[in-house]
Structures are given as structure tokens and as C-alpha cells.
């Protein structure tokens, strides 16, 4: 079975640009979450979606948005990129409320 897949794996953007990151959860997983991991830190929660509805939002500015599609895949969008948005963006999926999360390998975003 395929795990959580994220695309692209690496991305370089210029300040002020927009970026879209994509995530496909494990088949059957209806919950998808996004995390930002700055170098040397633990991941920070950005969004959680379940059954296409937002179920949680971390302390991130409105430049960050996300959505979940009928097939449970998800997109994370970041507008007006800042240098500080440079990080590893991790997607995780989960089957039920009782379970642990399975993570993808992440998208490395560099803003120059």
C-alpha cells in the first residue's frame, strides 16, 4: 500500500509569490493534517481537515489556507511568501480518532 505522498519534494520560490503543496493520504484515511517544521525545531500544527471540513487551525496567519477534496487529498496554499516561510511542510493522515498519524516525507520549501 502506498503511504502518504506529498508533492513536490523540493521547491524554491521568491518572496511575495504564492505556493501550493499537495498531499495524498493513505487509502481510507479521511483526516489530513499539515505541519510546518523549521530547521532545528519540532513540527508546528497548521491545519487539520476531516471529511472535507476544517477541524482545527494552528497559530498561523491568514496567508496560509488549505482545503480537502472529495477523494480526501489536500492542498496547502501560502500567499505572499516571506523568507520565514522557508521550512519542511509535512502532511499526515489518520484513519480514526483513536489512531496515530502517518506522515509523508514532506515538501522542502525555500523562499529566496
Amino acid at each position, binding site marked *: 500500500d502506498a503511504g502518504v505522498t506529498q508533492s513536490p519534494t523540493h521547491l524554491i520560490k521568491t518572496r511575495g509569490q504564492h505556493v501550493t503543496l499537495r498531499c495524498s493520504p493513505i487509502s481510507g484515511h479521511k483526516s489530513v493534517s499539515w*505541519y510546518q517544521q523549521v530547521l532545528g*525545531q519540532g513540527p508546528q500544527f497548521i491545519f487539520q481537515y476531516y471529511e472535507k471540513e476544517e477541524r482545527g487551525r494552528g497559530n498561523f496567519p491568514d496567508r496560509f489556507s488549505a482545503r480537502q477534496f472529495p477523494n480526501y487529498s489536500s492542498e496547502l496554499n501560502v500567499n505572499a511568501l516571506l523568507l520565514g516561510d522557508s521550512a519542511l511542510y509535512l502532511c499526515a493522515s489518520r484513519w480514526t*480518532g483513536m489512531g*496515530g498519524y502517518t*506522515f509523508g516525507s514532506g515538501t522542502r520549501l525555500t523562499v529566496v
Partner: protein
Amino acid sequence: AQTVTQSQPEMSVQEAETVTLSCTYDTSESDYYLFWYKQPPSRQMILVIRQEAYKQQNATENRFSVNFQKAAKSFSLKISDSQLGDAAMYFCAYRHFNYGGSQGNLIFGKGTKLSVKP
């Protein structure tokens, strides 16, 4: 708000020896989950072990075991018979318990970098 603290930025262990990584957390809830994740240079976060707070018995997964002290809010990870492949960043994480719902994000510590010497 819940917090997770890992006080050891780096640890080192000799191959085949045992090492313990520390984690403390702060919460006012009585039901929650605790996790240890491993992140090798490949970047993928891999679940090592999980503990439900309502279970008194410490979780064990092969060479990995935890010492869960609920009253002390402590959750340490013991790695026995350390192997070169155990070298990675280890993150302790907390999630509150939700009854059949979909909420519950992970709160991570800052991580401990484990080196394994041959």
C-alpha cells in the same frame, strides 16, 4: 495550553548499548495520547511507539519501551541494543483524546538528536 519539553538536544550511545531519551509535558487533561516519532535524514516522521494515558502499563515495541509516569507528566523512551539505524532525531508528541471525533493535532517537543557510535 499543552506543552512538550525535551531537555536533551543531543544524545550519544554506543552500538548495542541502552539509551534513554527524556520528555516531559504539561496538560490539565486526564485522557490523552503520547507518542515518540523518529525522523531520519530522509525527513519522514516514523511512529516508534504510542501510549494511551488511561493505560497504566508501559508500551513496548521490540527494542523500544517507554517509562510513563502520569503523575509526574514524564514520558521517556528507552532504546535497548542500539543499532546504527537508530541514529535520527527523536520527537516526543502529545495529542488530546477525542471521543470518536476528528480533532486532535499533535504537539511536538523540539527533539533530541541521537547518535550511535560503532
